[in-house]
């Protein structure tokens, strides 16, 4: 078990290093930091001096090491656009994105899994067919279109919910939350549905497919032959076996939610890191882009680690394998 965790941690660190290298490369090969910091008019000698002061003449490994060292301390440099520290800009906007993603993920999981189980158990019922058809439409509708439609229906036509912003937020130390005010809760409904809907359809279709697959296996047939009740077969045997692949994909999907928040935040003018990232892409604001990349990379690595740990809990075969062979998948 410990060997397995250590192995996974090393892998995670390697992935993070690779991501950091891409971020570093973006810094280094796109744009001239000297020109951006000091403007184009600087005399040549001062320019060279500034290059030296900034450490840009050092060999690449040294610069990369410095980059990683700074990043670990939360120092990602200054934004080209606002000349503020990038770390602070992101930290300020992170709570908005995390709250939105969290609510969207809960929505996707708690609606998607039961719907998928139902559609898998009763594939021929009209409800299942309806859910499958609607889900296909859901997969085909781009997120931004869903957002626009929801705004049109619930904000413009019905006037029930706000069409943009976070509503009223409360500051709790460094964290600003919109989940504690009625206004803030109303504001998060439409964005969260927009963001979660695509994941919901994916999770539902996946759970259904896995459920159908598992129901065809020999051990399910044998469980029936032993006379177990439908409930025991479906919710005991089938569901538990469905969970292994579902955990993997769902984990990755939840990571994707934070990245997909870019679109939702744009549609709803939600003041999160996604909107910040979009603005930085439009201004070619490399420090913000590379920091965002590192942040998303970190989210994925952490989620992957959690998924691997969950495997251990669910699948006894992996536990044995992990103890023996260090858990190679």
């Amino acid at each position, binding site marked *: 078990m410990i060997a397995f965790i250590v192995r996974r941690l090393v892998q995670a660190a390697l992935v993070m290093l690779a991501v950091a290298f891409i971020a570093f490369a973006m810094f280094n090969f796109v744009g001239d930091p000297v020109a951006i910091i000091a403007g184009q008019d600087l005399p040549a000698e001062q320019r060279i001096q500034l290059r030296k002061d900034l450490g840009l003449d050092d060999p690449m490994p040294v610069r990369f090491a410095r980059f990683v060292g700074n990043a670990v301390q939360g120092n990602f440099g200054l934004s080209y656009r606002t000349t503020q520290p990038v770390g602070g800009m992101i930290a300020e906007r992170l709570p908005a994105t995390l709250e939105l993603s969290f609510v969207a993920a809960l929505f996707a999981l708690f609606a998607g899994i039961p719907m998928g189980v139902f559609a898998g158990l009763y594939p021929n019922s009209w409800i299942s067919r309806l859910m499958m058809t609607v889900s296909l439409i859901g997969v085909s509708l781009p997120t931004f279109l869903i957002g626009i439609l929801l705004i049109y229906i619930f904000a413009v036509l019905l006037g029930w919910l706000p069409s943009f912003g976070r509503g009223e937020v409360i500051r709790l130390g460094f964290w600003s939350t919109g989940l504690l005010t009625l206004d803030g809760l109303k504001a998060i409904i439409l964005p969260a549905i927009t963001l979660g809907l695509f994941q919901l359809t994916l999770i539902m279709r996946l759970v259904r497919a896995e459920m159908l697959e598992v129901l065809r296996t020999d*051990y399910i047939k044998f469980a029936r*032959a*032993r*006379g*177990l009740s*439908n409930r025991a077969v479906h919710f005991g045997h089938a569901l538990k*076996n469905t969970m292994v692949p579902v955990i993997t994909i769902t984990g990755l999907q939840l990571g994707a939610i934070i990245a997909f928040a870019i679109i939702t935040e744009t549609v709803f003018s939600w003041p999160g890191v996604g909107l910040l990232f979009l603005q930085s892409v439009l201004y070619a604001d490399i420090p913000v882009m590379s920091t965002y990349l590192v942040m998303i990379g970190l989210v994925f690595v952490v989620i992957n680690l959690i998924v691997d740990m969950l495997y251990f809990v669910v699948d006894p*075969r992996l536990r044995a394998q992990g103890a023996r062979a260090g858990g190679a998948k």
Partner: protein
Amino acid sequence: MGSPKLLEVRNLRVEFPTRRGTLVAVDDVSLEIAAGEVLGVVGESGAGKSMTGAAIIGLLEPPGRIAAGEILLEGRRIDNLPYSEMRRIRGRQIGAIFQDPLTSLNPLYRVGDQLIETILTHLPMSHADARRRAVQLLADVGIPSPEERVDHYPHQFSGGMRQRVVIALALAAEPKLIIADEPTTALDVSIQAQIITLLKRLCREHGTAVMLVTHDMGVIAETADRVAVMYAGRIAEIGPVQDVIKTPHHPYTSGLMGAIPSMTHKHERLTQIDGSMPRLNAIPQGCAFNPRCPKVFDRCRVERPEPMPAGSSEVACWLVKEGAHV
């Protein structure tokens, strides 16, 4: 066979509707099993033997369905029971063992939990008693240190050991009949005999009847009391195992035996049956075996033979009517 009939299958017909027409997987099959008796069912793959077994425990996979005939357990019809009633029969009255022990056990549950779950489903018992029974069952099927093994997961057992667990599961609620569908095919040759011996011993001790589905005539010869030979969804010959082996009446049975004492020509002994069984969508007119039959004559190509008495057996072959001996 003086003992009362435990299971009776009458004119069973199993159909699979497909887009190119309906396939008849089991056609007009009738057989009986007495209490405590071992009936071997033998035939090539696709002959309908597994399908017959699945129909009896009510686990035909859709779109397969029973199109005609009836199945009676101790005189009571069970083929038309609703799912909730049929499931009380499965495991309690009729147990099942499937081909592949590696896939028959749920990998995420301890074998003990699977046993206890089966016991508690059918028998009024406390959890502690069920667990004691589970350990006892594992001991009965020859698993060493069962107290410890009861808490292990299936992947911690070898293939042969897993099939022993499967047998323990099938016997957990003391069924009167076990349908064993190719119980040893997936196992090592060296282990096959052990499993068959175990199954035979346990069923004798518990007085359990067995329907042993296999393509291995050798296993049947050693184990079964009676044998049914199936071909293309029908029973070609059914009778006491010694009689069928010594004096097969159906040319297909003779072919299956490989070496038959009554055959005089040496080269015929070792000859395999030419060709292969027809696909279910292309069963020939008349006797399904006629294109491959060495003794075929005109009537075989036109009219389908029904099972008719021949000695102690029943045989579906016109040769019997003609009085000829195979």
